[in-house]
């Protein structure tokens, strides 16, 4: 078998060797362990899991290490790995009502059954650099030690039943003040297995958004707040915690819990004046993201609501966040960064074609000018 070996291969090998060296950095500094990244860079790990669409904190941590902290590159590594995994089963829908919550807040009610649980949030930290962290010391804090909410299924693994934490939206629904979301057992489409087809249904949009780029979804959501497709959102509820993942085993005739995942769920309450067919009531926006990914979940719920204009009989105002095709075709950062960065690959054949064209057009323009003089 003849295998061509040429200079380009050596250049690539050298580049990879250099990259490995840069990744390691100064060998005098201890090397990062996967466990350290997983435990101490958890929010980066969460983002990589969410946008990589694969719940595996260790692999996400590995990807972050391998990618030198470039999170989009890490997402890419996870996505490429995910593609090769066989589909063994589809889980039952997770029950976020049975979530063992670490954090659960509502912006619409001062208090509510289940209570407001602040949880591990940056919200009220003062953004002052904590130099004790730099000195490898513990941060200065007056707080009482963390007592987790009863979290029987949580990471502590204490026994007992999970108390159900009712959804705020359920209270509004009881009074008919918010649109009823009917249960739907239609299997959702999967854009990782079927080509994206437009118009998309809500389930497909939500899938695209939950794995979409956090920055892109954030900016779109922000644009709706500033007036581009305004939907007046309140965070009805935001909850973060652990849910059980169950899979039906046909041979057994019942579902078996195969593990737990951390999720962030956000439901927004949005103003709606009513339409020809519907009386005025509140409407819903929904966000559900793997891991503790609060900014993403809130942003997702705003964009979800904005994309529902047609279904709710609202006007299309031309806002980007209302435009399903625009949002879905551009929210994936792996697609976006690939196409963006590919322009650094050789294009000299095309460029040569353009050069010839411009030279020809210039020559003709010059000839015409000279003829005119």
């Amino acid at each position, binding site marked *: 078998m003849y295998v*061509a070996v040429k200079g380009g291969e050596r250049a690539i090998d050298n580049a990879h060797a*250099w990259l490995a060296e840069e990744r390691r950095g100064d060998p005098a500094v201890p090397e990062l362990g996967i466990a350290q990244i997983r435990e101490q860079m958890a929010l980066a790990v969460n983002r990589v899991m969410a946008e990589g669409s694969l719940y595996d904190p260790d692999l996400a941590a590995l990807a972050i290490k391998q990618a030198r902290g470039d999170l989009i590159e890490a997402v890419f590594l996870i996505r490429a790995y995910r593609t090769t995994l066989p589909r063994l089963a589809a889980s039952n829908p997770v029950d976020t009502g049975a979530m063992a919550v670490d954090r659960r807040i509502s912006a619409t009610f001062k208090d509510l059954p289940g209570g407001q649980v602040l949880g591990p949030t940056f919200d009220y930290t003062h953004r002052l650099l904590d130099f004790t962290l730099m000195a490898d010391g513990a941060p200065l804090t007056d707080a009482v030690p963390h007592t987790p909410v009863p979290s029987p299924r949580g990471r502590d693994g204490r026994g007992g039943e999970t108390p159900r934490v009712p959804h705020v939206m359920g209270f509004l629904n009881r009074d008919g003040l918010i649109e009823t979301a009917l249960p739907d057992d239609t299997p959702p489409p999967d854009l990782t297995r079927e080509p994206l087809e437009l118009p998309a249904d809500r389930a497909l949009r939500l899938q695209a958004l939950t794995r979409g780029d956090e920055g892109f979804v954030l900016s779109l959501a922000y644009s709706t707040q500033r007036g581009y497709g305004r939907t007046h959102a309140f965070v009805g509820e935001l909850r973060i915690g652990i849910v059980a993942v169950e899979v039906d085993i046909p041979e057994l005739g019942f579902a078996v819990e195969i593990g737990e995942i951390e999720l962030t769920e956000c439901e927004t309450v949005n103003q709606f004046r009513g339409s020809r067919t519907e009386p005025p009531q509140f409407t819903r926006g929904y966000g559900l993201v793997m891991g503790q990914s609060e900014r993403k979940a809130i942003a997702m719920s705003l964009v979800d609501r904005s994309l529902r204009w047609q279904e709710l009989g609202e006007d299309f105002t031309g806002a980007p966040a209302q435009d399903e*095709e625009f949002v879905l075709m551009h929210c994936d950062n792996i697609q976006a960064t690939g196409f963006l960065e590919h322009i650094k690959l*050789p294009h*000299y*054949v095309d460029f*040569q074609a353009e050069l010839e064209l411009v030279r020809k057009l210039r020559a003709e323009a010059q000839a015409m000018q000279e003829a005119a003089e």
Partner: protein
Amino acid sequence: MSDDTQSGAYTFAYLDEQTKRMIRRAILKALAIPGYQVPFASREMPMPYGWGTGGVQVTAACLTPEDRLKVIDQGADDTTNAVSIRRFFQRTAGVATTEATMDATIIQTRHRIPETPLTEGQILVYQVPIPEPLRFLEPRETETRKMHELEEYGLMHVKLYEDIARHGQIATSYAYPVKVEGHYVMDPSPIPKFDNPKLSGNPATQLFGAGREQRIYALPPWTDVVSLDFDDHPFETSKAPHDCDLCGAKDSYLDEVITDDEGGRMFVCSDTDFCAGRRAEGHEGRLGGDQKSSKTFANSFEGIWPATAGAR
């Protein structure tokens, strides 16, 4: 994790069987509807979108262990991305590779059609960035799909005619749109329009893969492909008005290489196999065949790398 330890972990040609079946079904429908873009559930490949993920998936679905694979980028076998894709298939499919167009059974290409005429039984796989020829006239997929359905290609003709009104000629020099068997308007991928005539009546099977955009399309052998034009402004090809400085070819597509900072330049065949073959036969261009090769130019950036890894 070294590259070699990974190879055993993946199936022949990387993709799992179900994915290959899905791609293979799309390829067959593409062959049955020449020029129509068949949607397919493109997978995330271990190389970025834009690097040829569509072409790689099509090649992976077509490869057999007996194939001899050639990979070119910009016409050259040794541009870095061509090297990288060839290596990918060497590693995951163990196929033989070649640089000789005439010896290859499958050729994956980015931006060129080889100068050497293709033959029956060969497959040419194009990497496609934007498969939709109407995309820059109408950004919405929902709209362009309708336009193809109704064969409503007036917008494209208006665009080309505006070029003529403004520039006296059609100002599209690559990815020049074509009409297939009198029906679908198709993007031939960003090949220079110099290559367009080779699309038509070609004995080889031509397959086009767009990974990010999730489309596969095809031209069966001997398919009639017409570059769009007007009676008073017929389609014409173009290339740099020079001969190859290495092999003297008068009719090959040329790369322009800047040789110094005082305006010096040379023109060399973009198809490195074609150029090397001619020089082996004794053809010689303005700058002769011995002191420089186009491959040296293709890799001239190599000099900036340290001789051995980590020698900084």
